[in-house]
């Protein structure tokens, strides 16, 4: 039995975005440039992936102002955290089923 992998997260670039956001404590947000630097992505590329994640309800994007400069904050939603948890559980399951026939241990 192979578990279904969430196609929104399974794309490599978005997986890295979600893994990064999941490392933040619950209730924390990161600035768009901060996230961009952590991932080493271009702003355009990151925007595209973020809007796909936002469409799926996995990511929350907050636009605000610091003085006069606009600042964008990004955070994983509760649903996004749950989806990532399910995704990693599914990957681990895949790993276990792939290893099971070869040897009994993990």
């Amino acid at each position, binding site marked *: 039995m192979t578990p279904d992998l969430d196609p929104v997260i399974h794309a490599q*670039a978005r997986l890295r975005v979600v893994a*990064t956001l999941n490392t933040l404590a619950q209730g924390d947000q990161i*600035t768009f*440039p901060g996230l961009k630097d952590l991932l080493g992505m271009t702003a355009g590329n990151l925007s595209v992936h973020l809007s796909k994640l936002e469409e799926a309800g996995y990511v929350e994007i907050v636009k605000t102002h610091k003085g006069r400069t606009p600042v964008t904050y990004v955070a994983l939603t509760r649903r996004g955290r749950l989806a990532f948890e399910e995704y990693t559980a599914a990957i681990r399951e895949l790993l276990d089923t792939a290893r099971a026939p070869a040897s009994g241990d993990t």
Partner: protein
Amino acid sequence: MNMDDDELALSPEETLRLIEQQETATVNRIVPDPVPHYLAWGVAWFVGFGMFFLHHGLSGTPYVEIPIGVVLALLFGLMAMAMLVSAMTTWQLRSPVRGASQERGTMYGMAWGFGFFAMWVIAVRFGPLLPAPERSLLWSSLSMLVVALLYMAGGIILSLRPMFVLGAGLAVLNAVGAAAGPGWHALLMSVGAGGGSIVTALVLRRKRRRLRR
């Protein structure tokens, strides 16, 4: 332009490795390195309380004749330096992260301020009623009590077990030292608190290295 084109299918192993790498990179970037803080305080306590120990002696006769002014100046100087190291390494003014953990950090920082303010008022009130060696014991045991309590609280808030263990150890040593007298207290704080803080620094450094691997 298809943004999903860079997604060559990864094996489950590669996927898990990618997640781990990304988590490690993120932690290293947004969580401050705790090691300089513990090392600086370890050295400050070891040397500062070590001087106190030499000044008081275990039975009340000094081992080395050092004027109390020099001892205090050294202890406070070292503590001021350690405080500077802590502020520089743990205060993240340029952090890209805001939210719940920032709020927790602010409240935790304020707890140190309120804790030491309250302790200072109590020591100022009762200190003058005591003979000199007991007065210095009142100050040092009260301040180490505040440190011990806040380290335990910090360990709980940040779920950092080594920090909690250090705080609990400080609480016990501080109580034993206060009961035994000024010389013993200084010795226990120098070796136990100073040494304990240095050991905690080493434990945390190993933990962080393992995470980085």
